[in-house]
């Protein structure tokens, strides 16, 4: 089942997500990308109801780029996080989106940052965050091994340890994972961790 997590390191932030599209006991697809590249310096990892996830992440992405076209300046990660929280909070009392978000971004003034946003519109600025069944294992792993001054290699190693733990302890562990990273040079895909071919 779903596993989305992320952490902030020294000058970068990374987000990891499983890539399984599941319906009941059936795996439809194992290469579903659940981390959207919002703009040049933002990553939005999302878990939850598949339809809501697609709808909400695209809605946010389009609004972020509309803002940029209108005003000539990009939204900061903080502003984008608060925008998402606001949208989720308004939806919450009408027709809630079932999505949980790990938002990672890099801003010139503030450097890398990570935000935890859940479907009931909770917003926290954090160093490490996780959602889904995998969170029980990845949070424990990160609590033990995380340091704020980690390099990219160290953080990737920790992410691998988390994935390893999920695979060995979670009954319904997903097969594949994707790792994305954001730093001063922008947001991009880092690598995949596969056990099955597509």
């Amino acid at each position, binding site marked *: 089942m779903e596993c989305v997590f992320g952490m902030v390191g020294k000058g970068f932030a990374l987000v990891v997500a499983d890539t399984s599209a599941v319906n009941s006991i059936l795996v439809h697809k194992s290469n579903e990308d659940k981390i959207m590249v919002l703009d040049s310096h933002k990553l939005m990892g999302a878990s939850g109801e598949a339809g809501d996830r697609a709808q909400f992440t695209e809605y946010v992405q389009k609004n972020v780029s509309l803002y940029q076209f209108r*005003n000539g*300046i990009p939204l*900061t990660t*903080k*502003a984008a996080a*608060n*925008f998402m929280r*606001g949208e989720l909070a308004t939806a919450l009392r009408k027709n809630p989106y079932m999505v949980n978000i790990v938002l990672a971004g890099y801003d010139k003034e503030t450097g890398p940052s990570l935000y935890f946003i859940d479907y009931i519109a909770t917003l926290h600025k954090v160093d490490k965050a996780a959602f889904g069944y995998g969170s029980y294992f990845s949070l424990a792993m990160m609590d033990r091994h995380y340091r704020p001054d980690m390099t990219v290699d160290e953080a990737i190693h920790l992410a691998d340890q988390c994935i390893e733990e999920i695979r060995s302890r979670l009954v319904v562990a997903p097969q594949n994972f994707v790792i994305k990273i954001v730093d001063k040079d922008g947001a991009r895909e880092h690598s995949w961790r596969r056990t099955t071919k597509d």
Partner: protein
Amino acid sequence: MDEDQISVSWILNICVLPKRLENLGNNTSPDGYKLIVRSLPVLHSSAQFNLDSSRSTLRYDSRTTIFSPEGRLYQVEYAMEAIGNAGSAIGILSKDGVVLVGEKKVTSKLLQTSTSTEKMYKIDDHVACAVAGIMSDANILINTARVAAQRYTFSYQTPMPVEQLVQSLCDTKQGYTQFGGLRPFGVSFLFAGWDKNYGFQLYMSDPSGNYGGWKAAAVGANNQAAQSMLKQDYKEEISREEAVQLALKVLSKTMDSTSLTAEKLELAEVFLDGGKVKYQVCSPENLGKMLVKYGVTQAPVDT
């Protein structure tokens, strides 16, 4: 057909309208004009004339949203005219802040104003504006601007970029020149503000909804004279103190009244104080001292 006749027949029309609506079947009114009446419901019927258009400008200036044959919007131009008679305001952008000065039109000695400033308004922690024009119109727009700024902070938890605030307000102003039926806002603004992307900024806006960023700008009475003086005396890299001095000098020379006193003036500054944006209004006492110091007025003689 001249203008007087048209307006008279308009009044006639309004008077006889109920009668006309009774006999909707025949589209010719008693006084011979052809009536174009929409079908039901009766309440929404409109009466319209089929007149030969006379090429007089007067036909167009009662409409805010209609171009004249020369391509002008008269109501908008009249609104700008109204501002030309209002107390003026000057804004100067300096390297460490923005300075706004305004001339208060003292209408009566007995008048007691409720607010401490009547031309300068704080829109948000990082933006302030000076007003020239009809104050009652300005109050509406200032409220709109304040709401826009707070809405933005509510959405993004970040102060609204200055240009976006100006733009949102100018969109409102523009709306009244196109979706009118009413009249445009008779107000020009000078916006002074700071944001993290573009630092200190000064914007000027007019009733048409046009706006632009300026290094030094003037609105209100004698704004052209003030503008040309500013153009001559403005230096790049001017300091805030020099900007205050320049603004006071220009205002004193372009004001209609002969003597410049602290009671007739307002001075406000936006600057950074320990990394935070500060909006400061100069007290009348300090303003009086400053006027003497800069040689704009002579020190009062004690008797």
